[in-house]
């Protein structure tokens, strides 16, 4: 490596670090604030050096019933993703093998439309059917988020699997359904992991549907953050600690499955 190259490399890293700082700044600010006292948070100029405290986290996990919200989010996300797989995997397979492009586009539209346009119908349906503050309503609404992701990622993934595999299985004596079950699904691991990770994170982060359809019983994490916002004042430390606690699982999930997710998302774009 010559001098010129080394300079280029150094420049590259400076740019990368700069961009990362800009992107990560809110996150870093949030992270540091979650360890500060209320006075430190609103101090001006902002304190870079402070004595960290765990009192915010204690509040989040102690005073607030955070475990309950955590379980709610997990149950809602898990069920929504699970049911979306049950419906979405066969749907994606059919879209891929019988080239139902219009259907695929229609499903994508559900994802592209602003979520807010579904709020009124959901609210009316849920209240008329007496489903407010139930898992049923919340899971169904979260499937609106998870299902299009599953269908889109998986139909692209199935497109990359040669049809001859099922055809061979069918000549070998399988029905199409069995070929899907015994041949296609077992080799779709990376695609399914991608779809599950992304749709679970989107469900986990969802604020709008949960805000409207859930009350105290089924409240999910993003809504629970609001417990720290009262009429009189905002408990910034609590909000920040709660936000960190909410983001942690999403970040951990992404880090674990990052390799699969990148592979799954670029599947079909590149051959082989």
């Amino acid at each position, binding site marked *: 490596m010559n001098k010129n190259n080394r300079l280029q490399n150094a420049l590259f890293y400076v740019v990368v670090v700069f961009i990362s700082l800009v992107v990560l700044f809110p996150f870093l600010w949030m992270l540091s604030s979650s360890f500060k006292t209320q006075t430190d948070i609103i101090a001006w100029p902002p304190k870079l050096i402070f004595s960290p405290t765990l009192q915010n986290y204690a509040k989040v996990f102690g005073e607030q019933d955070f475990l309950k919200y955590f379980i709610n989010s997990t149950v809602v996300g898990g069920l929504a993703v699970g049911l979306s797989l049950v419906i979405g995997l066969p749907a994606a397979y059919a879209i891929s093998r019988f080239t139902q492009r219009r259907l695929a586009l229609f499903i994508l539209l559900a994802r592209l439309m602003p979520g807010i346009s579904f709020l009124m119908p959901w609210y009316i349906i849920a209240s008329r059917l007496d489903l407010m503050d139930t898992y049923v309503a919340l899971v169904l609404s979260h499937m609106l988020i998870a299902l299009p992701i599953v269908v889109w990622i998986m139909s692209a993934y199935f497109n990359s699997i040669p049809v001859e595999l099922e*055809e061979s299985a069918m000549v*070998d*004596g399988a029905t199409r359904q069995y070929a899907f079950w015994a*041949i296609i699904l077992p080799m779709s691991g990376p695609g399914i992991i991608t779809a599950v990770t992304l749709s679970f994170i989107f469900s986990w982060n969802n604020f709008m549907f949960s805000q409207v359809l859930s009350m105290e019983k089924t409240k999910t994490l993003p809504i629970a953050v609001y417990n720290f916002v009262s009429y009189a004042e905002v408990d910034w430390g609590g909000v920040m600690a709660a936000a960190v606690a909410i983001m942690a699982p999403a970040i951990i999930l992404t880090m674990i499955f990052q390799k699969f997710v990148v592979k799954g998302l670029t599947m079909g774009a590149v051959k082989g």
Partner: protein
Amino acid sequence: MASVDIVNVKKSFDRAEILRGVSIHIQDGEFVVLVGPSGCGKSTLLRMIAGLETISSGEIKIGDQLVNDFTPRDRDVAMVFQNYALYPHMTVAGNMAFSLKLRGIDRAEIDRRVARAAEILGLTALLDRRPRHLSGGQRQRVAMGRAIVRDPRVFLFDEPLSNLDAKLRVAMRSEIKDLHQRLKTTMVYVTHDQIEAMTMADRIVVMRDGRVEQTGEPLELYDTPANLFVAGFIGSPAMNFLKGTIEVADRTGFVADTGTFVPLPPSPTHGELAGRPLVLGIRPEHLRIADGAAGGFEVGVKIVEPTGSETQVTATANGADLIALFRERHTVRQGDQLHLTPTHFHLFDGQNGARLASVSI
């Protein structure tokens, strides 16, 4: 084991007609090769026999059964795909056992059949490997193994050797032929390689553009091609063609449009054909160096390619290239002028390409 009857089968995708009425009778135990240029509908026809493609009209029978509306699993055929389509998450043994498990055959019998197929194909040491840890030739064998464990009524092959290198292809060619001799099961084999067709087939079906051009034993197609297309397709290097007419007046012979005059001995057929637009067809090995300048037509040598057993000479006669194949060793060099004469030739109709006569001199 069963015969296969294909009766006036047609296939259209959307509006495009891909097969335009194909009829082939394949006997029980026969090895039939479908051959033809790319896109002529060979794979489509094979897939229709397997039940992977619907039949637009016509009938396909396996044995005495009309199978038009049968699903692939009910047809009891085995197919080897061009890309092998091995199940990547199963071992070699698992790939071969898949169809047997589906048929509910008991464990001991499955193991026995897999072991026997593995032995025939030399895969015994590889039974626990996954397909991605196999070489191309080994994968090809596994695909064959998956077919032969089943003892199906008919084997279907879609260009199974086209992904292999030349040497392996030649080796597998004789192995498949050997396998056929051993199993005596009906086989339908698709290829666009006419050498594969010639060397392996009991009978060849030459297709073009969704139609059967000719059906026959390999040497029958070689010696008496029905038309120009078959004549040009079968044989390598290909048959030489000259467009022109027969002349019987003051000299007897073939006058090519390029001006070349090929002297021919008198024959009664010439009289009938004189004056009509014709195509003269001469296979490369049916050209010899004429005894005297008067006995042949003059060509200029462009390329000389000796292989030891024979010498291939590419020459040009008034702008038309010809290939001659000599078993004897002539000392010809690039730029030489030669006089060539046919020992055997065909005459084809200049309009519809049908073969009109074949003459040995």
